[in-house]
């Protein structure tokens, strides 16, 4: 599809299945993450994001399908792989009697070492006191402990797996986090970022995958995903609209005359790949003003998340 896909992917998952009793957490999930990209991993609660990440970490064993991480099997080669992976869970639990600094060092040593200078710099940037004991940290500060350990990891680490890593961080710290992820990308690391903070995804991710009910429903760059959705158009025309209603891909057309003139105001939504024909048609009527709004990321996700809700409703009925 894109040039990134031609190089060996950092993560390649095909038809992954995982059940817990009668619950099908993963139902044929696919995922491709190219080496060196920041990949957004999105989906409503309970869609199977954390299950996927825990399969990728070799903590859960898949029932079916294949998963390859950096060219290796996450279950068989777990230990070898983990030297090259740093993981940040969404809910960091610390040992109550170990200090934050001790836990950062421990996590680092369990991987392949820490960059001491980077550790000190990150502690400063995240404004984290490493001498406090695990039980006294707030939620956000516990996240920072895991984030510092991941971002300061030794150069052997090629892949960062971040599961809702910024939950509990304040907006300032969120900014620090975003600049850290950008630095990681510049250093050539691959990042798989599961998140509900859409502005964060929009700012950081080269490509995203949206999953729902254990299956991938959409995958591509944000531009590609936008292409698949509708653009809102509001236009003031000097004359009456010409044949807009009959154009393919036009939805929710409304048109009313503007008082005191020959003009009309037209509102419509159009499938983004049909935008060209609509603009031509508007041009024949004479355009006085035009507002075209691309779909926001929120709209993109809401569409999928709501589809999910509707699908649930249908099943319930």
């Amino acid at each position, binding site marked *: 599809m894109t040039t990134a896909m031609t190089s060996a992917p950092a993560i390649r998952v095909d038809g992954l299945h995982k059940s817990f009793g009668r619950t099908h957490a993963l139902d044929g999930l696919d995922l491709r993450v190219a080496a060196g990209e920041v990949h957004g991993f999105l989906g409503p609660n309970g869609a199977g994001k954390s299950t996927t990440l*825990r399969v990728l*970490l*070799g*903590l*859960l*064993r898949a029932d079916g399908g294949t998963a390859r991480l950096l060219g290796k099997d996450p279950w068989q080669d*777990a*230990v*070898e792989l*983990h*030297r090259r*992976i*740093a*993981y940040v*869970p969404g*809910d*960091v*639990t*610390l*040992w*109550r*009697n*170990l*200090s*934050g*600094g*001790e*836990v*950062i*060092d*421990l*996590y680092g*040593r*369990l*991987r*392949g070492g820490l960059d001491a200078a980077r550790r000190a710099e990150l502690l400063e940037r995240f404004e984290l006191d*490493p*001498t*406090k*004991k695990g*039980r*006294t940290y707030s939620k956000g500060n516990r996240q920072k402990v*895991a984030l510092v350990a991941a971002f300061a990891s030794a150069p052997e680490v090629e892949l960062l*797996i971040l599961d809702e890593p910024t939950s509990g961080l304040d907006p300032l710290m969120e900014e620090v986090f975003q600049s850290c992820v950008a630095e990681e990308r510049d250093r050539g690391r691959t990042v798989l970022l599961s998140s509900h903070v859409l502005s964060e995804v929009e700012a950081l991710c080269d490509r995203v995958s949206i999953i729902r009910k254990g299956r991938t429903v959409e995958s591509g760059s944000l531009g590609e995903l936008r292409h698949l959705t509708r653009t809102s158009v509001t236009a003031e025309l000097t004359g009456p609209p010409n044949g807009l209603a009959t154009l393919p891909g036009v939805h929710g057309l409304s048109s009313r005359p503007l008082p005191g003139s020959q003009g009309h105001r037209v509102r419509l939504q159009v499938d983004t790949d049909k935008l060209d024909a609509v603009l031509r048609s508007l041009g024949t009527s004479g355009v006085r003003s035009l507002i075209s709004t691309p779909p926001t990321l929120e709209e993109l996700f809401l569409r999928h998340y709501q589809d999910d809700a509707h699908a649930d409703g249908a099943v319930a009925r």
Partner: protein
Amino acid sequence: MTAVTAALPARATRPRHLAGTGALLRLALRRDRLLIPAWVLALGLSVAGMGASFEAVYDTAAQRAGLAASMNHNGSMRALYGPVFSDSVGGLVAWRMAGFGAVLAAVMSLLIVVRHTREEEETGRQELLSAAMVGRRAPLTAALLTALLANALLAALIAGGSVLSGRPAAGSLALGLALGGTGTLFAALTAVAAQLTESARLAKGLTGSVLGLAFAVRAAGDAATAGSGSPLTWASPIGWSENLRPYAGERWWILLLFLAATALAASAAYVLTARRDLGMSFLPARPGPAVAPRSLSGPFGLAWRLQRTTLLGWTGGFLGAGALFGGIAKGAADLVGGNRQTREIVERMGGQQGLTEAFLATMTGLLGMVAALYAAGAVLRLRLRGEETGERAEPVLAGAVGRLRWAGSHLALAYGGTVVILAAGGLALGLTYGLSVDDPGGQLGPVLAAALSQVPAVWTLTGLAVLVFGLLPKATPAVWALVGGCLALGWLGPSLKLPAWAMNLSPYSHLPKLPGADATAAPFLWLLALSALFAAVGLAGVRRRDLG
């Protein structure tokens, strides 16, 4: 707005400190629906049922009088159980349980109160509750009421059960109230500790130390003064429990002591709780190091760091218990020597080579069984499985750490720790006994070897626990039942005259009674092989199963 407030009567603006107590109490009872009945039934029934075993062994008044006289004559036995105030069957039950039963009731209260006060704050659950219509004093009140209810049930069960087995009503009631009263007092003391410390563990440790001190003060008092009424016993609530003298001219006014002390401690807890913020404590947490020491660099370093305090505590406990048993061993043998039936029992349970050796064998066996609580319970159930369910194992295993190395690090402490604590117990037992017979050099070796001979049995139970952890992780709490079952077989099996096949279910039944008996390598090798097999299958399960 101010005008309205001023116009209202003071009553309407009075803070409702106890609001929500009822709801919290129901929550606590719902959460403790297994814990409280298990404690109350186990403790209550063993106290109420103990009379039967005294009747079986000492069936004539003369024998009981002989037992009482020799026990009262022996300082080390007085230290352990306190004096015998009456040689009736009830009096003997009270002698045996007024102290020990009170300690157990106090432990029950300690667990209940910490669980519903400091632990709730530490986990952050209390925050959510207190944000609702819950008054400032409601959580403490609900916890104390829960403990009070448990102790009341315990007292009622002991009193009722003892009366049903034919003991006098007044003494039965006094015995129940002695245990229930001590339990309630320690509930209030725990409530104070829960205000002082920041963690639930520390609160338990603090109250546990007070309890240990209370027992030691009572033991010292009873050891020092023959007969009754050492002033030191009045300094300890455990002493009050025995001084209530159930079945021996009950001193009911001692109940007022319990009442006053409980009221005092509870008031202190309420004063403290009003002066602090939610989640805060009076003993502040110290900061830790900013960087990890060299030793904290792998799964074993982590396991050692997390468990070293536990191991240290157990080692200290075994040293103390060994010294105590060693100190009374000589006297204990003199004592049972005077009674034919007891001598037969000890010989049957213990060894063939003489009463002292039988006593020492019984004590090393006791140490061996308790060691299983450490290996299978404290290490495997609480730590290893706790790391997994508490989501602390996940980031460790996301490092370059194999599952076997992770589980193995904790298990190394279980297996190695077993040897350490048994060696500590055997060392203290052998030394103190050796000193008491002026032959420390000759006694230390055999007694130490006897204590270490327990290791294969402990390891077998630990292996079984690994098996459960690996194959049926959700059933890991059943490890307590496994260990408890073996302990019960060892303690009650001989007097219940259980068939051999039932006794053989316990790995301890296969050990020779050391010191004294002839030891062959076969049973040890069998147990070691079985232990290795269990552990291997369990670890294979750990490698294959989902974690978390």
